[in-house]
């Protein structure tokens, strides 16, 4: 198992390296833009010279890698947050993204699994039909449509919630105040519809499969009630694929949803990505791209490894 994990991690870093290289080349060859201010122009030009931005591309890449490995320096923001290290710029935006998505997951998981279990137990009864139809609708409708519906009803019609997430200053200087949480409720709702539907569909599919399996028949013949057999046997087995999916969603929350962040003006990683393109802040853009790639790769690898931890049969099969 350890060997397998190590192999996967090494492979992940190799992939990350290749993608970073490609992104670096594609981003560095873009023409850079100078700010309007003449004094700043001179300053920035001098800094670029000193940082080796005028060297040949290969040497630039060498410098870039050296800075990462020796000083954990992913470049500098040149316009969004003047002269702040790109790493810090991205990490500053991480907390709001994580919070909104975390709240959404905490809301979605019980609903998703609960509805999925209900649909599977009542398979082909009206409850299942209602749930399955709704799931089909909610899975298909794009998330921004929910965002507009949520904004329309919760803000314009009912006026219960603010239109956008409060800025840090408005909410009392912390991401953890009650006021901040309150303003995050609309985006959390907008995110949750799709997640709940996806989780419900997945749970239903897995549980119906385990419910019809032979060991369930055995469990019932040996005298367990239906509820006992379902919770002790079917649900446990159904969790084997469901849990990794949930774990990967927890890693996915680092990435968040760009579109939701844009609509609700959440100052998160996704919004930073869009801003870094519009302001042509390429070092931040580069950092953000690496970050998204890393999160994606990490989610994939964690799913594979968690399968092995959750289900011993898969671990045995690996050997």
């Amino acid at each position, binding site marked *: 198992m350890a060997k397998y994990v190590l192999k996967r991690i090494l492979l992940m870093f190799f992939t990350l390296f290749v993608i970073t290289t490609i992104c670096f080349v594609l*981003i560095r060859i873009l023409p850079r833009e100078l700010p309007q201010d003449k004094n700043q122009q001179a300053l920035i030009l001098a800094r670029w010279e000193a940082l080796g931005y005028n060297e040949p591309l290969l040497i630039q890449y060498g410098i870039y890698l050296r800075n990462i490995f020796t000083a954990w320096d992913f470049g500098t923001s040149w316009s969004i947050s003047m002269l702040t290290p790109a790493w810090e710029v991205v990490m500053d935006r991480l907390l709001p993204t994580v919070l909104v998505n975390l709240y959404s997951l905490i809301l979605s998981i019980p609903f998703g699994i609960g509805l999925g279990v209900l649909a599977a137990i009542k398979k082909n009864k009206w409850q299942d039909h209602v749930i399955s139809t709704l799931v089909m609708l909610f899975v*298909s409708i794009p998330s*921004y449509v929910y965002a*507009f519906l949520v904004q329309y009803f919760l803000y314009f019609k009912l006026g219960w919630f603010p239109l956008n997430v409060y800025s840090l200053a408005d909410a009392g200087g912390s991401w953890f105040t009650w006021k901040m949480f309150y303003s995050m409720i609309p985006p959390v709702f907008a995110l949750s519809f799709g997640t709940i539907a996806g989780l419900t569909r997945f749970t239903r599919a897995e549980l119906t499969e385990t419910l019809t399996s032979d060991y369930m028949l055995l469990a019932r013949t040996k005298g367990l009630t239906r509820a006992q057999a379902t919770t002790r046997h079917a649900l446990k087995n159904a969790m084997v694929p469901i849990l990794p999916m949930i774990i990967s969603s927890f890693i996915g929350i680092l990435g968040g949803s760009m*579109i939701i962040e844009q609509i609700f003006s959440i100052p998160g990683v996704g919004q930073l*990505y869009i801003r870094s*393109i519009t302001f042509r802040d390429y070092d931040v853009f580069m950092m953000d791209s690496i970050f998204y790639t890393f999160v994606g790769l990490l989610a994939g690898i964690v799913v594979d490894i968690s399968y092995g931890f959750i289900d011993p049969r898969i671990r045995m099969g690996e050997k």
Partner: protein
Amino acid sequence: MDNENKQTNLPEETKIPKEKFAFANVGEKLSDKKFDTKPIGYFKDAWIRFRKNKASVVAAVIILAIVLYAIFVPLFNFRYDASFMDTYYSKKGPRNLILREIGIADGGMTRDFNERALIKEIAKGIGAEDADGEGATWEEGKDSYYQPILKIKNEYMQAGKTVYSAKIDTYLEVGFLYRSIQQSEYANIVAWQEETGIQVLYPLVDTANGYCYDATDANYWYKTDAKANPVTTKNGEDKSISLDDGVPLEDNYKRDADGNVIYYEYTGGGDATTAQYKVRILYYNYYRYVNGFEPEYIFGTDSQGYDLALRLASGIKLSLLVAISVSLINFLIGAIYGAIEGYYGGAIDLFLERIADILSGVPFIVVATLFQIHLAASWGPIPSLLFAFVLTGWIGTSSRVRTQFYRFKNQEYVMAARTLGARDRRIIWKHIFPNSLGTIITSSVLVIPSVIFSESMLSFLGIINLGGSTMTSLGTLLSDASSIWTNYPHLMIIPAIVISLLMICFNLFGNGLRDAFNPSLRGVEE
């Protein structure tokens, strides 16, 4: 000896002499009887099963309807094409002259007015009835065809003042405009007015006598004080008019020495052909004069004044075309790549899988952004978008094909074909590939909604821009609406409904196909 004994033991009636026997089929060709029923092939079988899935059939019909809409609505719109626009009628709601009579699609919007603003709106109707400066009453104005206020829904007090919540026809709300035209056009309009009896030109307003609140706003045709409140000067002094007085609004028209109203005013230019004249027009009728029909937009107009119904059609067309081309290209690349991986296996598979692994690690949004930045200028936004979709899109298809090939490549019929001397290429495409076709088609169909979604997301985020005078995508329509939809909800609702419908229907359709093609479901149905 034994035979003879047996024969003798048999009952009497079976004792038939040898001569009576004759060969039944001597000289005839013997062959199997042809089936009375028609053979059912793979696709026919799938079709039969697909038909039973009601939801998928409905979804397919809706998709077809949307496609037909996109194709035929622009074709059957004889009045104008997709590049037709009118800047004064931008962001207007749905309006249809027939449906207007029953209170839907009347271009209406409910808004709050204070008394002064409400009088200004009602005055547009009164002014429209007063083309010759002889005056019009409130009743005439309220009943006028050009009256913007459709209905006063509610009045309430707020901070000591009455607020009127009224439904207003946003097309008629434009009211009067000043326009600078040449003499020839003036003559044309006058001729058209006489021919049709529709009044376009209205008397000019005296902007200099102190009773005109805003000299640039042609809707202030009545006398107002410095705060834009209507006044009457009948008794020698200025007196405000309120809504319930019943005192008629007093016109502020410019008149010549004989007291006749003036319809045009020379503003500049040299000879008879270039001279410019200032006129005051009722825009609704001016539109009719220019275009020959009344403004009617069944879905309203978009933020620039294009007909949303046509924009929607071209948006659907572009989004679907992009989605279908991506799906086809992915199908091709994925099938070939997956077939090679799965069929040859071993080192080739491992190597190709690594490449696919690395590519699939690149987040789509990063690819799309980089392609857009680098290629959009030289290749145009659509090819670079297609490229971004294709770069990582085929991986899903290829891994599906690969799995299918692993499943089928060691089956007996493949071995038989190989023994008979078939080449690799023949085995791959003729023998194994058709078996995995169902799975691949299903996944290709399911690619379509995801491409539509990704395209709309990228447009929405402003990473790509597919908007133009004759071209737009569903995502572009949504992103156009995103900043102003709170005031003009139809701009958001209509594209959002279409996009959601497309997503739902393609997903249902794809699921139906999957169930139809998946032979493991055979016999499971009730």
